[in-house]
């Protein structure tokens, strides 16, 4: 295997449930491959309904205690997690590039970007305020408080295998929730490494949990189990619609971050060179595999030919190749 980290204990192959690293009940595994080379990196646990139910129950037990902690305690834990992510940035980046394909420089950027959410919500946790509202009659007093939703399920995609998870786990933990996670089977290693670092940071057992494996079974348990009060999903629109429909049965809250079809408009009074650079980064970052990538360039007639020519010249400077090699700016597609 070409994957070498300075700390190889960040490479996990098992599910993380109630503070324990466990193989699937069936012992089955699924392969995680390097999209640049096709080689198998690691075999991870192929879990199903039973393991998912156990992690949901573990999260419920942990959440009732966690909801009683102070904001300062929650802030401190998230800060420790942030520090550990940044201390291990290089290893996490190599792991990410190996399983996902993006250039190493982008992977380093993603780790820092994702870590920023842990830092931000560590800080925000102390700033959750309620209201005292003027009473409608002399004998009443009205107050509004904010309380954690409960057990939250995070389902994340392969295009940002680290940051899409920290963006969900951090605010959930800050709010006093516990989480159960299902990362994309194509890129679970970055996600499992985040669980390892959470364990090192001292997250109480059951507070964060993760399974990999049979997507349909795991998803069905998550959306039907009434203990899960919220599902947060980033991924394709068709899958998002299906999850929303399934969540309707138990009236769960949902947050959905689905597909985009971003227009990129250039008016004739634009700074064309700036527009070319903007189009380049917003279109070709992660080989065009992000939800906010410009999908359609819409150009005013007067500058159309000029812009097309300048864009072609700029695109020719992109270097296609294996993301682990220095100098590569566009990696392989993941599927």
């Amino acid at each position: 295997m070409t994957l070498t980290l300075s700390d190889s204990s960040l490479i996990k192959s098992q599910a993380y449930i109630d503070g324990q690293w466990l193989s699937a009940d069936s012992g089955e595994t699924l392969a995680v491959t390097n999209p640049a080379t096709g080689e198998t990196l690691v075999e991870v646990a192929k879990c199903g309904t039973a393991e998912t139910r156990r992690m949901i129950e573990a999260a419920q037990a942990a959440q009732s205690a966690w909801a009683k902690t102070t904001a300062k305690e929650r802030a401190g834990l998230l800060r420790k997690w942030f520090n550990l992510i940044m201390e291990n940035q290089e290893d996490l980046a190599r792991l990410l590039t190996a399983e996902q394909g993006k250039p190493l420089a982008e992977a380093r950027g993603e780790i820092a970007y994702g870590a920023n959410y842990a830092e931000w919500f560590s800080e925000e946790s102390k700033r959750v305020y309620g209201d005292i509202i003027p009473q409608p009659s002399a004998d009443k007093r009205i107050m509004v408080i904010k309380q954690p939703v409960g057990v939250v399920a995070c389902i994340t995609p392969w295009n940002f295998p680290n940051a899409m998870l920290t963006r969900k786990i951090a605010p959930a933990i800050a709010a006093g929730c516990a989480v159960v996670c299902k990362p994309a089977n194509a890129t679970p290693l970055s996600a499992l490494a985040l669980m390892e670092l959470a364990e090192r940071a001292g997250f109480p057992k059951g507070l964060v949990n993760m399974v990999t494996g049979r997507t349909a079974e795991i998803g069905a348990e998550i959306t039907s189990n009434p203990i899960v009060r919220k599902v947060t999903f980033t991924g394709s629109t068709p899958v998002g619609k299906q999850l929303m429909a399934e969540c309707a049965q138990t009236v769960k809250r949902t947050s959905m971050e689905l597909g985009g079809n971003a227009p990129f408009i250039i008016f004739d009074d634009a700074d064309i060179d700036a527009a070319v650079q903007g189009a380049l980064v917003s279109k070709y970052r992660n080989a065009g595999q992000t939800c906010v990538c410009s999908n359609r360039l819409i150009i005013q007639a007067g500058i159309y030919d000029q812009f097309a020519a300048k864009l072609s010249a700029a695109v020719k400077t992109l270097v296609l190749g294996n993301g682990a090699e220095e100098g590569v700016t566009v990696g392989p597609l993941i599927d």
Partner: protein
Amino acid sequence: MAKGATVALGGGRSELGGSFVEPTILTDVSRDMRVFSEEIFGPVAPLFKFETEEQAVQMANDTEFGLAAYFYSRDIGRVHRVAEQLEYGIVGVNEGIISNEMAPFGGIKESGSGREGSKYGMDDYMDIKYICMGGIDQ
């Protein structure tokens, strides 16, 4: 290509083989082509043409999605008008990289609901409880 688009650059699988696709630019594209209405999720840029500001906004909004939109202009009036009229959760003005933890990230229409990051990001994980106390005033 079958509907008349021109490949101005790239257009194929790279000689590197496997999952490598060349960065590609398409011109002479029209709104009835799949590249207008479907998310490509790969390094392919179709270039559409417009005449008026109203047309640009209408073309931009002609989609069930509403996550991010970008536009480049140096006219301050146009910048305000277009930013307000675009049916998107995120608008980048003279800027291609918009995501950071302090700003609310999320879409409208079929791009979804909820926001990640920012001071609003905590709301997605909290429930509001209204507590009404009576019998206070003797």
